[in-house]
């Protein structure tokens, strides 16, 4: 599949005669499997599935909980869900790749979300994003090599009156200036080093 051309429309999945699985690029596939093996968390996944088993339309809540638990969706966990719910893995991957909240590759310990809502946009949040990209040496959507930070953008966290805003994990920062960005990151790096 040519990733540059793929629009994620899902038509190929619907028409595929053998219901083949969505493929990750080989290097990401390897990374995905390796990371799950380290954290033998099968029980956690089983618990999550059990919690939502009897609800109709439980796939999304299950995936959200798995995503929260691991910070991403490990492939074996998805296979586990597929087996348990008796649902084709294809369908699960399609849902997982449709929603922005899910990640099919491992993410860093801290997830930075720069708000690009309109309020933040007109108050200069693109410059915060540029500053963070320079500081961390990654583009948005990527994770630093030390697996400490993943830089993402979010379309509005509802802090418009305190724009520009960014969120790191559960902490929200309002009225951030490009000058403060470095200091905020340093405080997290320092905390991780201790």
């Amino acid at each position, binding site marked *: 599949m040519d990733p540059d051309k793929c*629009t*994620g*429309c*899902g038509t190929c999945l619907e028409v595929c005669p053998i219901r083949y699985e969505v493929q990750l690029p080989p290097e990401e596939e390897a990374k995905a499997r390796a990371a799950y093996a380290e954290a033998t968390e099968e029980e956690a996944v089983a618990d999550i599935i059990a919690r939502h088993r009897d609800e*109709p*339309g*439980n*796939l*999304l*809540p299950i*995936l*959200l909980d798995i995503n929260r638990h691991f910070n991403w969706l490990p492939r074996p966990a998805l296979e586990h869900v597929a087996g348990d719910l008796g649902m084709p893995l294809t369908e699960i991957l*399609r*849902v997982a790749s*449709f*929603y*922005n*909240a*899910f990640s099919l590759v491992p993410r860093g310990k801290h997830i930075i979300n720069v708000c*690009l*809502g*309109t*309020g*933040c*946009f*007109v*108050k200069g949040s693109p*410059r915060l994003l*540029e*500053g963070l990209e*320079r500081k961390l040496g990654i583009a948005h959507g990527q994770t630093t090599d030390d697996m400490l930070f993943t830089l993402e953008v*979010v*379309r*509005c*966290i*509802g*802090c*418009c*009156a*305190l*724009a520009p*805003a960014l969120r790191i994990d*559960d902490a*929200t*920062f*309002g*009225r951030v*200036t*490009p*000058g403060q960005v470095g200091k905020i990151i340093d405080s997290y790096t320092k905390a991780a080093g201790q």
Partner: protein
Amino acid sequence: MKISSLTQLMAVKEKGLAQTYPNKIKLMVGLATCGISAGADEVYRCLSQKLAEAGLDVVLAKTGCIGFCQKEPLVDVVYPGKVRLTYQSMTPEKAAELVSSLKDRRIMDDNLLCRIDQDEFLVEGVVRPYANPHPPALPAQVPRYNELPFFNKQVKISLRNCGFINPESIEEYIGRGGYRALHKAVTMLTPEEVIEQIKASKLRGRGGAGFPTGLKWEFARKAEGDIKYLICNADEGDPGAFMDRGILEGDPHAVLEGMAIGAYAIGASVGYIYCRAEYPLAIERLKIAISQAEAYGLLGENIFGAPFSFKLKIREGAGAFVCGEETSLIASIEGKVGEPRPRPPFPAQSGLWGKPTVINNVKTWSHIAPIIARGPEWYANYGQGESKGTTVFSLVGKINNSGLVEVPLGISLREMIYDVGGGIAKGREFKAVQTGGPSGGCIPAQYLDTPVDYESLAALGSIMGSGGMIVMDEADCMVNVAKYFLEFTMDESCGKCTPCREGTMRLMQMLDAITAGRGQEGDLEKLEKMSRLIKKTSLCGLGATAPNPVLTTLKYFRDEYVAHIRDKKCPAKVCKELITFSVVADNCTGCQLCRLRCPAEAIAGAKKEVHRIIQDKCIKCGTCYDACKFDAIAVE
């Protein structure tokens, strides 16, 4: 304890009132997401610590956002039997000072925003003065709450309790008349009468499209089916809008009560609240609210002893804008990919799991209880023409007073921006106001006297939308703004139908070229043609409205597009490819500030000598411009 009669409800009300208005001084900290991001939790911690140290017998409580986010963190001091004082822009230091002033029995003058002399219990139509008979005189000249321009044109129906109660206490909600309307509906009105009242109030869906709510309920009531569902759309995806967050974090029971009344009216026994995952605090407070309502029997089996049962569940979104569209939202609750489907059939006929479903927005639900309690005539007094009642806007952007405001429909844009909003920040010129999120449009200065209602905004090519109102000034490039919205809709297009998936990408490519100085004659006509095509042929509202930002900016700010294409200039000096930064030699003092701050090492110059920008290295980030204190950086 289950509440099954009015007497029991009144007993809880007394308890709630005692909690809201204790016989000692009470401090309230606005702890919604906006307050927290401004540092309110630190202020709360500091107050709690200092109060303990000082050994003061004072109640410290949480509350939601009163709407004036600009002035956050806000701390209120309620003197029992006297007055309530609101302090703005609080810091831990000021919090410590406040505690010591309380200890010395004096009133802190600093940071005082306003005084509140009375509390309105909207649902009961009662005004409760803090002091009898006269509020005390204060040493400093402090404006009253309703004298502040930000508040005096507001009529708070949706936001009736936000900033007045602890959102995590059902007793305080009941104290201010909560669940009275549910009692009235369930025990005194038939479902048809409830629907009649909502119809008579002329309430229209506050999610944006403005469909008459009562009519929607009637369709669902009359639809065939043993099981019916009710949904609250709290997937507030419009960037620049946070009304739903404000309500859910400040007064979640207002939504729960509205939904319970709706469920009674249409005959639903299960409801869902679909809330976006980006609002963790709103979800947490909803969960608390639901379990409290269940504990009192206000949700669950045989509510108020009547043969009516209603259960509520929360569903979290997973970050897809298109799920704000009702058919996508329903698909998402069903656990599927959130893709829209053609209507009809409308959800009122065939919605969640193929059953008749009523889906309304958070704001719509929060209007229901007051309408039932006070009557449709009272509600229809507000607003004008076909747009009755009030609605909540999030007033943000380049404006002095940003925050959540609730105004009667029909107020003019000028009143919103210049009176409530206090005008444009930094003394700049107003350029445009953007309403309706990515589906809306940009309205220029010549239409500032337009009334804010569904029809008038649509006539200008924008929409009322869910209530985001983003003010832009002369420093905003309208081509760039159009590009911003298009990038958003392009990203969020689910990809199901071709006009939206491919069309928005084509528009984006053209706008990219224009902002990069590669625009050509004839591009504007192409943009218009493509936009009209996308509007006509897209499957759902996302595609059908995606070109609106392009069309309105083309209509009202065409000269800006022309400047980008013909002169290769960005008049607002925003588009990076079309601007250069340089040092104004006469103003430069050689202070080195810009050189040290420049992230690209693109500034050369020794101390006390005029600096120079190395254009090849310059990444046009604007850091030097912000850093310079002497106006010595020019943007051309």
